[in-house]
């Protein structure tokens, strides 16, 4: 076989190569297991002894030269890749993917709120939805025959005279404080129930998050700082916050907490009822009577508690105008979150 002829053929083959695949074909043709070079190498033993040395060297040189040429060609092809391939698809075509599902917006809201408080050191605790009258009312300093109960209309259960569906997440305060000694730093998300007539902002079931911090030195000023961190975390650093005196039987001093309206930035609009403020939660220092019920010494401990409606926060944050949407579970709604 004429080495020079082979050289020529290689050159011709390589010149015709335009793609990596073509180059691979050439490589296999010459360098593959059954390629020409293997054949040449295999024939060395059969070459007459006096020519064998020269022939061997020629085959070796050919191999090296071929490797070099392939390497060069490869570089050349790589450089060409930036040039649009005519087989390349229209990138305007839809991407190929299997769609993931979505977490319910209430779950997302709870996760977001919990993660803010988790970073501050609060732990998540849950409690039962069917509660005792004691935990839901009496233990929280809400006398059974007092108008302060009017805010907590309640579903009762048949067959059990003292069992009800919790009307707020606060009974978990009583449970946790009875079971553990301070320091306590907990948040409690969960479902709550009130026999409210259904409309765009009221439902007989909704979600709340309760927060509770008890230690030897917890102050109202701490409540202000903690809730401001929270509100800015959810609604942005620019919002303003105000604490308004209010009454809750289980806290004193008590406050309702407003943020500057996120729609009109405090100028007054239909969302905030022209007030410029949006009420987002209730809070206060835990009432000494609540401590008495759970056996804490109010000379030694102070604490704060706060509670908010998840749907309310989510409606404000996401601009949802009807609370019923959360429970209709229209996939077109769910997939927006």
């Amino acid at each position, binding site marked *: 076989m004429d080495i020079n002829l082979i050289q020529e053929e290689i050159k011709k083959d390589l010149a015709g190569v335009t793609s990596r695949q073509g180059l691979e074909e050439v490589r296999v043709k010459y360098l593959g297991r059954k390629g020409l070079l293997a054949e040449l190498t295999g024939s060395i033993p059969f070459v007459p002894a006096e020519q064998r040395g020269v022939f061997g060297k020629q085959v070796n040189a050919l191999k090296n030269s071929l490797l070099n040429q392939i390497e060069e060609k490869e570089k050349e092809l790589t450089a060409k890749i930036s040039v649009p391939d005519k087989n390349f698809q229209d990138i305007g075509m839809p991407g190929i993917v299997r769609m993931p599902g979505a977490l319910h917006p209430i779950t997302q809201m709870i996760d977001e709120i919990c993660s803010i408080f988790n970073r501050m050191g609060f732990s998540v605790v849950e409690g039962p939805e069917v509660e005792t009258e004691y935990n839901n009312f009496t233990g929280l300093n809400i006398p059974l025959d007092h108008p302060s109960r009017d805010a907590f209309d309640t579903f009762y259960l048949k067959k*059990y005279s003292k069992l009800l569906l919790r009307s707020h997440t606060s009974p978990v305060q009583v449970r946790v404080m009875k079971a553990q000694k301070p320091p306590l730093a907990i948040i409690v998300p969960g479902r709550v129930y009130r026999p409210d007539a259904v409309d765009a902002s009221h439902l007989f079931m909704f979600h709340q998050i309760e927060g509770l911090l008890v230690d030897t030195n917890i102050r109202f000023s701490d409540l202000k700082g903690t809730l401001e961190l929270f509100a800015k975390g959810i609604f942005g650093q620019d919002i303003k916050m*105000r604490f308004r005196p209010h009454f809750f039987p289980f806290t004193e001093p008590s406050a309702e907490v407003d943020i500057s309206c996120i729609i009109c930035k405090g100028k007054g609009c239909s969302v905030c009822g022209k007030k410029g403020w949006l009420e987002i939660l209730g809070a206060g220092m835990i009432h000494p009577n609540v401590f008495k019920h759970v056996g804490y010494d109010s000379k030694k401990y102070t604490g704060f508690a706060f509670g908010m409606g998840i749907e309310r926060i989510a409606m404000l944050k996401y601009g949802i105008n009807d609370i019923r949407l959360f429970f209709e579970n229209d996939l077109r709604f769910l997939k927006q979150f």
Partner: protein
Amino acid sequence: MKVTYNWLKDFINLKVAPAELAEKLTMAGLEVVSLKELEGDFVFEIEITSNRPDWLSVLGIAREINAIYGASLKTPNPKEPKLKSTQNPVLSIENRKDCPFYSARIIRDVKVAPSPDWLKKRLESIGCRSVNNIVDMTNYILFELGQPLHTFDLDKLRGPEITVRRAKSNERITIIDGQQLLLDPEILVIADKSQPVAIAGVMGGKETEVTQSTRNILLESAVFNPGLLRRGRQKLGLQSESVYRFERGVSLSMAKQASLAASELIVKFASGASSGFKSLGYTKPSERVIDLDPLYVKRVLGQTIPAAKIKQILSRLGLKVKIKTKNILSVKVGDFRLDLKTPIDLVEEVARIYGYEKITRSFPCINPGTKTTEKKVPLNLIKNTLCSLGLNEVVTYSLIDRNLLVKSGIKIDKELAEIVNPLSSEQDILRPTLLPSLIKCLAYNLNQQQDYVNIFEIANIFSATGAGVEEKLVLAIALCGTNSFLTKQGLVKEETGLLHLKGVLEVLFNKSGIKGFDFIKKEPGKISIILGAEEAGFMLDLNSPALNNFDIKNKQVVLAQICLKKLFSQASTEKKFLSLPKYPAITRDISFLISQDVAVKGLLGLVKEKGLPLLYSAEIVDYYQGKQIPAGFTGLTISCVYRASDRTLTEDEVSPVHNSICSLLQERFNIKLR
């Protein structure tokens, strides 16, 4: 509670504009929900919290403004009139616990007429309808001083005498709005010699009301038991301005004062003559003394407020403050503030008037270590896994209609937890399973022209037991419809079925670190999910009656429900690294036809056993039924991976093992190799 700017000015020297006043009141806890200009006056609508009955009066709000601005408060001080004759009313109280104080004043020769304009206008501006001068003047005092009053036509009272007592069973009364009510001993009434003439503190009777022809009146001012009145009016379904105040608590000294103030007005504007008075149960109200340490104020608020400032705030609120030894304040509380009982109540007063906004925020030092509600696998891991598999989380109501359960055909072997007072039958039980809610949600979405609905929910289910209501956290999944997705070969449409559901669960169990799980067919259309050795839930293919009930047509619905407590008991979040294989594997596929009667699970087990120790894994990588396959058969491909941990396997080692597997399958299952 509505109050006007001019009315407030009767009690306090107001210099601030109404809008500024509204803002200040709101920030002191009297939330002004609306402020409207009305014929040269301004009407404030204020939301009064249930702990402050004293704010249900013009005087109470004026006292608050005094605390905020330090403007001087004019307190009324009516004098006891000289009686023209001394024919005192005959009174008795059955039980002083029901009625600690009752007073009756007789005014004779009144001229009942329409009210003077100023009175009409004031009442109407706060939304109170004018009736006649006598009724209007008692209402006026109610709004001004917060003490409900009532007037009877004296000549229509039998006796004339008054007894405060519980109603007798089956006694009846027609009240001023014309309703006839059936009474019972849980209801406190004012009665004359023979029958009830008013529901005490709630509403007067029609028969003895003051009318155009009334000449002589009996003016009632009393203090009733708040809880008793509340229960009574709830039972009768009544509400009134009077009982609203009695429920929250009225003060004894104000009850006395209001009677005088009303009689003064009546004598002045309806030309009557005071001619008799009698009261039962009056004792001089004892003033409560509360000691307040300014250090306690600081401990609760985190803000230093000087003792002098505290003293000023409390004094302006109408409390008597003295500085005792060691900077301790001694605070005397009059009976107009029934809500102030302990030092913390005073701390709130100080904070309110000092201004919450002036308290500098701080950050607490939070000590970790609270025990959390333990879950072996975070719920979010479960939720996120399901979402990553394309499922959407839903949240549905825990309260459902029991008929929904029947519609879904899902059998419940536990007793239902029922609601005493549902708003409607749609919420009459706590659901014992999540599945009916999911089916309903699924049907709703199909109705919204969704082709493919894949949803899950994690929530409690409930059942009634002897010990109470049991709550169980479960996961439920519902899949239905045709999933369409784009591939390089174009659009692929795939009908969802039980194997899709199984696939989702397998991924979930693996992610949860569950070692042993199994799916066992128990009855037609229902498959038990076994975790460890325990049945933890089930999958089912919804039967056609149920599909019809939910109006789901030509679609298969597959459902699963799993007890999460059982899942957690088998789950593990511990992770352990296994070395990656050092030597390459050899993969050999077996494609064959097999009778559909053969269960593949047993077949795979046998293959794995036979292939030991070189067979590393054996998996079904393809199956097919239909064209090219004879009826009753399935085309199956099993991919066998052979591997050794200490060397590269050779064909010579693998072939005999693989061939023996093929022969075994031929022998045992009569497979036909393709």
